[in-house]
């Protein structure tokens, strides 16, 4: 339940509701959408990326002297787990055609396509369990231009405008043109899409969409897709090997500068294993668990940007790593679920963000960076936020409108996860609004790829959130679910093609030594060792006692994460 002091504000929400409901029933926007100039002003004034300390120059590697998100620069200016003389590469522990690092949506798609189109074997090495990925958590849906009023090129225009025209055009074309085919591919694997009576797809709006294009599986869209893909992967144990709790910690190269596999680390036995692979796919997802700028995150436990730093050390260039996505609607209250995602589909279905006086202050479906910045502005500049008992602030997201617009029972039927999330704390979202604030959600940039998922390094492919270029500096809702399907499939196809022709040379980890030298030459002093693998949520006093462990750093690396937060090493 909400605390008593919020009652007055809640009463105002009820008072303004009939008028807002009337607005929502009309075809016009309930609040004027921003033009280009207004968008620029709210972004530069209030988006966390524009704070003075949000970015700094990275001193080493392929993006040297480029301004990146501060925590990303810290992550990149770090020591590797291993040096070349510690690992015997003469007899690899495992050999395969395609090594896939990451067992989420992109990785599973790639393994299936490499098998079906090329008859190739793969190994999926993943940090936690198969499917422990942000894929599992996407609620609202997947964009794909399937309606007759829509078209792939219109989807292209929406995506590239949402990304402020900085997206790599060939990637956006691949995304939007492959979209309808992905819907069909998933449906034939057994994904149960929400449908109309006549079998056509049920479509909704998302932020920045000019046509209803969001396809869904109730609000368990990602879970449905992930479990279907995983089940299919597990139906082919002879072709697709699965290594759980075995993240990659470094890439292996050959003497011709091609990627040739990776070193895996067993989280339980603490052993290292070498995998030789003809081609390698990084599908490790994003970095929400680095808690950039101290923000809570909607992300999975394992989202620590491991792929970024491994690829960077090997010489792959990053793109748009100065841009962070804060989801406009993270939970602000109750405290126990603070930072959790409230699906954008709530706004797509008619939910409205309101200030403490129950007034609209922004068009509910602006692109995410704009919407989030407008919410921050309303709280910080206009004093329109509602404070929580623990010292947070939030604005209302008026969810009861949804049943009023679509009929009683709609919310429970279409948003069962959201309903469940709040009812545990005595908040019935069909009767009361939710209190929300932006939450760290997505890595807009990543390792630069082309439409074949290729990087600067032959034999190294990237797909999904770990990649950069597709979304420019701002991704629209529902384009990440489509992203990992489209580019996961493309990675399977093109990495498979390459694997059939390549003849690998002598294996090497010399790039790790070279990177160490570069750190020393640049005068970087740090005790950060990456990949981070897992965040630690132990209290500070516990962390201090854990430091006494000395050099024997356990997985989870509480020590590393402690440093990343408390004494940002590069700053």
């Amino acid at each position: 339940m909400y605390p008593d002091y919020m009652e007055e504000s809640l009463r105002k929400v009820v008072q303004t509701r009939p008028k807002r409901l009337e607005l929502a029933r009309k075809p016009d926007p309930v609040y004027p959408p921003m033009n280009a100039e207004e968008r620029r002003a709210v972004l530069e004034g209030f988006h966390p990326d524009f704070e003075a300390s949000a970015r700094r120059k990275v001193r080493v590697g392929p993006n040297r002297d480029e301004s990146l998100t501060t925590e990303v620069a810290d992550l990149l200016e770090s020591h590797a787990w291993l040096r070349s003389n510690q690992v015997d590469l003469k007899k690899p522990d495992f050999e395969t055609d395609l090594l896939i690092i990451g067992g989420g949506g992109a990785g599973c798609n790639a393994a299936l396509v490499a098998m079906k189109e090329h008859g190739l074997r793969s190994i999926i090495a993943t940090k936690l369990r198969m499917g422990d990925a942000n894929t599992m958590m996407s609620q609202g849906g997947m964009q794909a231009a399937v309606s007759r009023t829509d078209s792939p090129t219109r989807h292209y225009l929406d995506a590239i405008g949402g990304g402020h025209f900085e997206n790599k055009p060939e990637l956006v074309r691949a995304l939007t043109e492959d979209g309808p085919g992905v819907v069909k591919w998933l449906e034939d694997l057994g994904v149960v899409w929400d449908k109309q009576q006549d079998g056509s797809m049920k479509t909704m709006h998302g932020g920045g969409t000019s046509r209803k294009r969001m396809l869904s599986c109730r609000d368990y869209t990602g879970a449905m897709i992930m479990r279907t893909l995983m089940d299919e992967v597990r139906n082919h144990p002879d072709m697709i090997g699965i290594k759980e709790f075995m993240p990659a910690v470094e890439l292996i190269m050959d003497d011709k500068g091609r990627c040739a596999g990776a070193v895996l680390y067993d989280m339980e036995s603490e052993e290292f294993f070498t995998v030789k692979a003809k081609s390698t796919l990084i599908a490790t997802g994003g970095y929400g668990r680095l808690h950039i700028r101290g923000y809570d995150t909607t992300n999975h436990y394992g989202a620590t940007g491991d792929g970024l730093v491994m690829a960077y050390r090997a010489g792959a260039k990053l793109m748009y790593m100065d841009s962070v996505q804060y989801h406009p609607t993270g939970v602000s209250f109750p405290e126990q679920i603070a930072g959790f995602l409230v699906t954008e589909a709530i706004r797509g279905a008619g939910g409205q963000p309101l200030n403490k006086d129950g007034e609209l202050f922004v068009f509910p479906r602006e692109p995410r960076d704009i919407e989030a910045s407008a919410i921050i502005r309303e709280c910080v500049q206009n004093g329109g936020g509602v404070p929580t008992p623990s010292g947070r602030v939030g604005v209302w997201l008026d969810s009861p409108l949804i049943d009023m617009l679509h009929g009683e029972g709609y919310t429970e039927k279409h948003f069962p996860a959201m309903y469940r999330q709040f009812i545990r704390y005595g908040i019935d979202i069909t009767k009361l609004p939710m209190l929300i604030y932006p939450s760290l959600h997505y890595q807009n940039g990543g390792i630069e790829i082309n439409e074949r998922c290729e990087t600067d390094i032959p034999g190294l492919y990237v797909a999904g959130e770990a990649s950069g270029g597709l979304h420019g500096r701002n991704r629209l809702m529902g384009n990440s679910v489509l992203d990992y399907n489209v580019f996961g499939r493309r990675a399977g196809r093109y990495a498979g093609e390459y694997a059939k022709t390549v003849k690998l040379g002598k294996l090497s980890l010399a790039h790790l030594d070279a990177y160490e030298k570069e750190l020393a030459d640049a005068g970087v002093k740090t005790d950060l060792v990456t990949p981070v693998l897992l965040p630690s949520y132990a209290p500070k006093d516990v962390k201090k006692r854990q430091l006494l462990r000395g050099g024997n750093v356990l997985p989870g690396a509480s020590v590393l994460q402690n440093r990343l937060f408390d004494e940002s090493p590069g700053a």
Partner: protein
Amino acid sequence: MTSVTAGAAKTSSASQVDGKQGKAAQRLIPISIMGKAYEVPADATIMGAIEYAGHQIIRGAGCREGYCGACATIYRLPGDYKIYTGLACMTMVEEGMTLTQVPYVPAEKAIYDIEKLKPNVTAIQQMYPSVFRCVACNTCTKSCPQGLQVMDYIQAAKRGDIATVMDLSFDCVVCGLCMLRCPAEITQPLVGILAKRLYGRYLRKDSAELAERVKAVENGAYNAEYAELMSMSRKDLSDRYYARDSE
């Protein structure tokens, strides 16, 4: 430039970033984690309490938002004979609670070619025959942290009613608690996954417009439009974008 961190980001450290900080005069309660006593914040989730105690969870945490089923937990309360079940990320601690996580439940997934199955009771019989051992005791339903009607979907599976299994198991997070508690040793979540795939593959109503669109893309129907958009200057593209109509 306005600093925005003061309002949200700093205080937001309270729950996710720094277990202990940012909460003055936190009330602590005693609980037992796998038989060992700890004092933890009274308003913590079980997952929060385990981490507050200093454990680095490796198995037993995943999405942390109730979608992935990694954090199945069983517990008892003082003076109460019952075994309770929950997801550690979604369940609050209670005074005197004694708990353990159950991060993995052994279960054999059937291997199948979905193209060779039919959406009927035969598929269930062949893949998961243990379903027919169900004694309708309802323990599965009582143990489900999602509040699903698990026994009802197992009964539907026995009848070959794939659509009902799909519908009732839709929100299953595969935490495995039901199959751990089941006296008939049925693997309920796996039955649910099979039924959902069978429904999606065979019992859905096809979308005519989807089929048309897939064909149009294959035939290159959008090549000219793409070529035009991709050759536009940023300014022209921006003008086109802001002038576009909306549904």
